[in-house]
């Protein structure tokens, strides 16, 4: 089996750092808050969050807050529920939830009451019954009632039910079998039957399987091998499938052992992460209990120690 090609990834990141005007980074300006969450979480899983300047990040996050209480994806952008979630997650990583005017944020986003332990502010029963109405005959969930089951959507529904203590609405054996059949011959996971595998499903499928206690139904060894095969071991970087093009966003913090992390954080702010690959890569390995990585929580998608600190800390 391959190993994390740490040194190669470092070189690769160094080479892309020079291309600050990369087209993709400009296109992705609006989701910088997400990018920060992916990058920071990945750093934390690697045990390197301490290298980041906390005040710099926190003040930037707070600058993205809109007067309504919600957060935009970047300074000047409209508030959006996704970026509000990312903003709260970012603050949680640094144990800085106290800077929030919680009631104001809650007005904006009900979902966050879950992470902020204010569940009484939403109608849990209605939320649960809507999610259950999206359940399909294969045990999975679609994005609307009747929509085709999709691993990404399943993660969202299973995660939401988990957080609301309602996993008994899921037929764990039926959904577990559908999910474990996402593992294809190469060891990788796809998101729907008869589709190609992709590294990002190492998060969506794995975390769902873990929440319903059926992760032993796939082969961890084969999946770890597949994920590691998605590294470009010659030039560094991580891609969706072995031999596809790597890109910086998949890779950024796909590796431990950076000597220059504060600088890497700066470039994160400048580039953004274009999709979930890097965090999927590292978080996927974390779910597979790969040595040297911190454990990640399958429902809140934050490091386990951060989640435990919120719920049991004081």
């Amino acid at each position, binding site marked *: 089996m391959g190993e994390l090609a740490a040194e190669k990834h470092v070189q690769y990141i160094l080479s892309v750092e020079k291309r600050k005007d990369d087209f993709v980074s*400009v296109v992705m300006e609006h989701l910088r808050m997400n990018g920060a969450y992916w990058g920071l979480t990945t750093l934390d899983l690697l045990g390197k969050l301490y290298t980041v300047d906390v005040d710099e990040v926190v003040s930037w996050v707070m600058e993205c807050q809109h007067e309504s209480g919600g957060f935009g994806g970047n300074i000047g952008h409209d508030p959006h529920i996704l970026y509000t979630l990312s903003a709260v997650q970012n603050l949680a990583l640094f144990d800085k939830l106290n800077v929030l005017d919680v009631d104001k944020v809650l007005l904006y986003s009900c979902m966050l009451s879950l992470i902020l*332990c204010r569940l009484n502010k939403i109608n849990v029963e209605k939320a649960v019954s809507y999610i259950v109405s999206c359940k399909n005959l294969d045990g999975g969930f679609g994005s609307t009632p009747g929509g085709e089951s999709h691993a990404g959507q399943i993660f969202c529904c299973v995660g939401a039910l988990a957080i609301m203590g309602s996993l008994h609405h899921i037929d764990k054996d039926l959904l577990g079998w559908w999910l474990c059949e996402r593992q294809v011959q190469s060891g990788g996971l796809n998101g729907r039957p008869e589709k190609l595998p992709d590294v990002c499903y190492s998060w969506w499928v794995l975390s769902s399987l873990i929440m319903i206690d059926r992760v032993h139904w796939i082969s961890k060894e084969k999946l770890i091998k597949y994920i590691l095969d998605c590294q470009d071991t010659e030039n560094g970087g991580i891609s969706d499938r072995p031999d596809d093009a790597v890109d910086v966003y998949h890779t950024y913090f796909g590796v431990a052992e950076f000597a220059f992390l504060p600088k890497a954080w700066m470039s994160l702010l400048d580039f953004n992460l274009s999709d979930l690959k890097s965090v999927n890569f590292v978080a996927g390995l974390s779910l597979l209990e790969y040595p040297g990585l911190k454990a990640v929580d399958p429902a809140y998608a934050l490091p386990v120690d951060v989640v435990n600190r919120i719920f049991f800390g004081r």
Partner: protein
Amino acid sequence: MHGRPRKAPKPEDAAASAAKVEKLRSLQSQFLSNHHNKIYTREALEVNAKLLEINPEYYTAWNFRKLAVEHRMSQPDSDPDSVKSILNEELKVVESALKQNFKSYGAWHHRKWVLSKGHSSIDNELRLLDRYQKVDPRNFHAWNYRRCVLLSNLLKRKVQRFFPKEVVLNEEYNLVHQALFTDPDDQSGWFYHLWLLDQTVKADVPLLVSSWPAHDDLILLGDRNLDDCALSPFTTFHFYSGTFPLIVCFDQAVEGVNSSTISVETVLNTEKELTWKPLSINDSKTSQVWVTHLNYPDAKLQSSEAYPVEVRVGHSKGIISSSGFLLNHTSRFVFKVLLQPIEKDPAGHGGEMISWGDGNFLLYETPSQKSNPMISLDQMNIMDEHEQKSSQWRAETIANEIALFQELLSEINCKIGKLTLARLLMARDILLSPCANKTVHSEEVIKLYDDLTNSDPPHSQYYKDERSLVLLQQITSSRESLLRYCFRHRDGTSSLIDNSFCLRLNNLSLSRMGSIEKLLWVQMLDLSHNELQSIEGLEAMQLLSCLNLSNNRLSSFTALGPLRLLKSLLVLDISFNEIGSHSIDTTRYLCPSPLSHSEEIVQSYDETVTGGVSLTDYWEAFLIFRGLNLSQLDIHGNAVADEKLNSFLVKIVPTLKWLDGGKLH
């Protein structure tokens, strides 16, 4: 970023990219300035359209367009023609954005928003969809949009017609057979077939499948001193507290179990209204298994007399399945209770330690034949004419399917085909069981699972779990078969055990538990030396007082969640498992806790009781053990076990007398 082959970039690409960046930067800053200043002029809209054409994911730009449309439609000079042209423009912007990225959530959403303004037509939309679905037939955005468009149309034409379930299912079986025989490697059809099978086997109407005590049982309550007249492992029960449980088990999760839907008639009970409790780990209102406790006032009752208890399940309507079907006829069962005077001091628990060594067990030899508690209940279910027909149809359908897949498998080697055959054979056994009560096919099914384990190694644990369920079904299929696993504990003098009968299901390679509905009577259970990763279902075994789970693969404290409902549990062995060896906890969200907002931990309690040990480190152990009344616990041989944990456990379980074989003060 998907499906792009790995290759080196060319220098001319870099120059072109720089120009594009320049253009995009300028569009973005112009747009943000317009947005913040609420400028909705034609020029501002053009800048916005160009921006969305390059970057359809720019959500703030879609918000701007909605504001602009509403602004323009609210102008005094707005008329139907101008509204039409405004909305047409929006549809064009969406189309050019979809050309750039046909999976853009923002673009699809904007189109739905325009449509909600009463614009465009179904024909138009379906033409657009045909184009996108040709490009990517699995594009779920397009399918969902199609569903949304067609749904509004279909609802208008919907005709209310009622078909019997059997007719519809027969048609669907024919349809899916065509798909499966044409392309056996396409999974979608198999998933659908599994669902059909489930619909065929499961009765809609909930059914009582077992109870403790069962029909005709004679239950011996009271002190163990008169053990010699013990009736059998299934019916002898010693209890000190003046109450005993009454457990009912249904074929599916139900709600509405209460003192009016189940009537209990007996001179024993002193309580007016019985409280029924669902046995579900997460305290939901629905459960397959329900329990109540009957009181017996020991003073005034004669020990020589057997008191009858009559139970009517479904006495009044109200027991309902989670899919909304009412339990529709009453099941009646009667058992008798023989009371023994209590001579021993109940507080005397904990004299000696229970040892699980093989030498302590003797195979139970049955003295005489009594009625079988497992079939007696099935016989009570009276079927009406419709149900008889429907059960005949089920048996025929399953038999047809079995023949069909045996034929398919004789021609090709197909993994899911084998799995389906195994499931069909089990389904047939379940359907036959009320009359035959024998598992006819279990050997064949176990062979199929062994075969699958070898041919599909990545999913071997799935097949292993299924195999465990089949094996347990086989073991519990008859009283004769169960008795082969029944032992008597030699240590008859220990006051820790209420009953010296032990069901030993050790060394069977079990990876999960099942057939619990047939094991409600068990008080002492040995599951050691298996491969259990989960003990889900054990919460129904309300009589359990001694449980051996040592040498299994339990990997966290939260995996012990079901034990929290076993209030009679006194002796627990979880030594030599994998608790603490794994960084990822797979039952973290199945066990109620503050994380799932289903249970609070009282913080002040923690500080006084745990004496300085951080709850963050041991919250799982705290959740599991604080509610148990254990006398004896073995926990060594787990990565988590150390002195610190032991002293924590001693503090939160004050009843503990023996820990890891050592006596506590």
